[in-house]
């Protein structure tokens, strides 16, 4: 007999269902240039703070749920470095990771996935060629296609899409692009608010909540996380599925184990 079936509807089954479920995710982001991390880091217990593999391993040990590696290498010639780096990351690090930056074709994605990336993220290339999202989800499945959006709230109160690392404004509203991208096959949205990024004054709760409650796919909130309370807010009010941050982890302003303990105390389910 199968206990799992017999338990259905019983008190024991209901207790298990409330105890067990999907966790909210904490995701450190590492910016990579020519194979090295570029934002400063402040750890005395690693030998080479510039090595993405070593820093990523440290975060994995501390309980990070996933990692994002964002390649900001300017030239195409140096892209080969990225697939070699992804290979090293995959060998050493045993939590899932997403790779983004400059990906514009199915061939690019194939190379990164073959080298061990779990997910890839696309941004400007998908906006300029939305069919890329259809092609990627058809070829590899939506679950590994992350759409990154850089967005900014203008004086008219609307959130607009920005391209090219947040330097170029478009006239497209963030929600409209996100919805189209999901229809085309994006399986997750990585949403960065330019208004909040770098401020440490908290995540953009309203646009995060809008996307998270209107779209069927998970939303990763990014930009502005500066305190434990900000993370609590983005999961409760912002309804985010995951929260991403960089410098507060790099500079040890918040330790991942402390952050997750605090979230659990606020009844936010995390992996401890």
């Amino acid at each position, binding site marked *: 007999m199968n206990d799992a079936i017999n338990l259905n509807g019983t008190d024991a*089954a209901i207790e298990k269902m409330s105890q067990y479920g*999907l*966790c909210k995710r904490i995701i450190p982001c590492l910016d990579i240039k020519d194979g090295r991390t570029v934002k400063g880091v402040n750890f005395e217990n690693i030998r080479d703070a510039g090595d993405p593999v070593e820093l990523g391993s440290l975060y994995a040990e501390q309980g990070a749920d996933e990692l994002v590696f964002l390649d900001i290498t300017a030239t195409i010639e140096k892209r080969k470095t990225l697939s070699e780096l992804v290979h090293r990351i995959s060998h050493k690090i045993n939590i899932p990771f997403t790779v983004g930056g400059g990906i514009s074709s199915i061939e690019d994605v194939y190379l990164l996935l073959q080298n*061990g990336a779990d997910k890839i993220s696309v941004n400007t290339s998908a906006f300029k060629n939305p069919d890329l999202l259809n092609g990627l989800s058809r070829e590899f499945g939506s679950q590994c296609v992350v759409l990154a959006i850089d967005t900014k709230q203008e004086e008219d109160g609307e959130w607009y899409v920005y391209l090219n690392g947040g330097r170029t404004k478009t006239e497209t509203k963030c929600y409209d692009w996100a919805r189209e991208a999901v229809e085309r096959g994006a*399986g997750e949205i990585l949403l960065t608010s330019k208004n909040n990024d770098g401020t440490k004054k908290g995540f953009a709760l309203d646009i995060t909540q809008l996307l998270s*409650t209107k779209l069927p796919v998970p939303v990763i909130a990014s930009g502005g996380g500066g305190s434990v309370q900000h993370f609590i807010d983005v999961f409760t009010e912002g309804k985010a599925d995951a929260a991403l941050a960089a410098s507060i982890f790099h500079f040890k302003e918040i330790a991942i184990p402390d952050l997750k303990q605090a979230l659990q105390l606020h009844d936010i389910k995390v992996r401890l």
Partner: protein
Amino acid sequence: MKLAIIKYNAGNIRSVLFALDRIGVTATVTDDIEEIASADRVIFPGVGEASTAMQYLRERKLDQVIKGLTQPVLGVCLGMQLMCRYSEENDTNCLGIFDEEVKKFDSPSISQFKIPQIGWNNIYDLKTPLFASVANGSFCYFVHGYYAALGEHTIATTNYIKPYSAGLHKNKYYRVHFHPEKRAKPAQQILQNFISGDI
């Protein structure tokens, strides 16, 4: 002990190899029919899309090879989907080793349950030696929009929207819907159990 990993157009073969390497096991990645048939254990990995993967397997007659295996076989994630009879993902007829259908998650509230499920969730009601020494409620990593319902072959349960099969077992075929190649202890234990356990 000869361990074969079936080579096809799936995304996570490398991470399975690396996970095995971390527990000191070497495996051969192969689409050679003889080599797969003569292995002691076979892993059928996979991250990807069901119809594209099935087409690839059929073109190389790997579908027949997989169905004919008598040694222990571990299907992972997409590999697990493909071992079922049918997947709603692009209306795909699969290998039919398990009679189950793979359905798309149907979210009752999109602000509460996103599709695909992405992240860490618990596995519980664990059965068979595949899960020996794995604690009830262990965290495993899931990335999927499709699932198999609970049934007579269920050997692990996960709760997302409702409880569903995180693992299935029939004869020498085992399949898990999470990624045993990801994350330290429970996942490594499951791989170790598959390779050296009495299954």
